């Protein structure tokens, strides 16, 4: 079982994730070239980059400054979500054993704390959805499911590291959760990890190039 989830299934997950995102992104761009031609006469690299950059920097936009709780929770969540799996020592050892390549890795103690920070940030995001009427009214069950899919690898990873259950079982569950998250990305709004850049480039150019107005 462990061999299967840590072998072929990893390949499946990465192929679906990367292949799916390429198909999706290329598909949307070519569709827009057919049906949204108007976009392309004011698409502008400078405005696009500024629009993306401002929303990638903490408190870079007015909306972020006015909503510090969401900004902090959101950035903590996303930074940990990307950094922990990429720079975890355990993951890098696996890659090193498999292909002889590895990235810089962080001390386990830091990864441990970042995992807890991610879970804390997720709890803040959930509380926001329940407590704030303007967020509650637009929240759907999908929002909770996707948050759960994104958090599951971290919760199970934490459990595996601290050996809270049978190490082998929890590790298998942890790998499955990670694969589920990767596979979900192209088919759900988690695809914003790539589409964010397209939509921000569009709106930055739409307001910037056409009327000299900023969207941050």
């Amino acid at each position, binding site marked *: 079982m462990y061999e299967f989830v840590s072998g072929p299934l990893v390949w499946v997950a990465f192929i679906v994730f990367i292949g799916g995102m390429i198909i999706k992104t290329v598909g949307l761009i070519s569709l*827009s070239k057919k049906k949204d031609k108007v976009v392309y006469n004011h698409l502008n690299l400078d405005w696009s980059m500024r629009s993306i950059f401002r929303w990638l920097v903490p408190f870079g936009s007015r909306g972020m400054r006015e909503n510090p709780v969401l900004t902090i929770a959101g950035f903590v969540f996303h930074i940990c979500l990307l950094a922990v799996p990429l720079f975890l020592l355990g993951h890098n050892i696996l890659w090193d054993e498999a292909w002889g390549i590895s990235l810089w890795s962080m001390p386990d103690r830091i990864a441990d704390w970042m995992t807890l920070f991610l879970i804390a940030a997720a709890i803040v995001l959930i509380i926001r959805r329940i407590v704030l009427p303007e967020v509650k009214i*637009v929240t759907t069950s999908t929002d909770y499911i996707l948050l759960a899919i994104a958090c599951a690898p971290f919760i199970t990873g934490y459990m595996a590291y601290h050996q809270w259950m049978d190490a082998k079982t929890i590790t298998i569950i942890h790998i499955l959760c990670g694969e589920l998250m990767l596979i979900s990305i192209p088919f759900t709004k988690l695809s914003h990890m790539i589409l964010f850049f397209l939509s921000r480039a569009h709106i930055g150019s739409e307001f910037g190039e056409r009327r000299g107005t900023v969207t941050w």
Partner: protein
Amino acid sequence: MAEAAVDTTEDQTVDTKVIKERLDLLKGGRFKMWLEICAHCGLCADSCFFYLAHDKDPKYMPSHKVMKTLGELYDKKGEVDRATLKEMAEVVYGDCTACRRCSMFCPFGIDIATMIAAGRGICCSQDLHPDGLKAAIQNYKDTGNQMAMSSEDFVETCEWMAEETEEELKGLEIPIDKQGARIMYTVNAREPKFYPQDIAEAAMIFHAARENWTMPSNGWDDTNLAMFAGDGKTMTAQVKLVYDAAERLGAENIGITE
């Protein structure tokens, strides 16, 4: 088209075929992406003055307004009854001005207001746009301006204003249909109809600036209420009317009233 079948708002049916066609036409790369990626974060709420003016009643928050209208139309693949569509019309015309402030506040840059405008287009295709806009659209179609002024009335108003103002500023003119002007000036049809002094005041500025300007006898109304209604056909015709006037007169620029 189903013009004969769907004639008045009393009609209790909707032409779902037309709605489906429009939904399909709209669904390019942008709409597809926007409808999918909204994270329901709620950041657009505070950007909306409808929401703020209604004591932060969440039903006025922008993304909710889209979800309840265009979002639902896509979910139901255009299969809605007239009562539902009428409720949607209340939202897209009554609870949003399409000012686009929310589009500037969305972290993902989703153009929320453009989706509301798309919803208006669908409501308008089923004759559910507000009566005031219907009347204006008819006027555009009949006369090329929202106030149903005839070309003669407009030209006479301008002449009258030129005569009155000339007493103050010697040599002042309001040139109509002059060829090769640098600026072809256009106005809101309410100006010649109700506030002709506005035209006189603009003329005074042009005169003092020694500007080479003119106004067209036809194609002088730069408002576009058809756009607000979601009537793309009339909207385009009105813009074209003004552009054609500028081309006919060989004007370098089109000036638009304040």
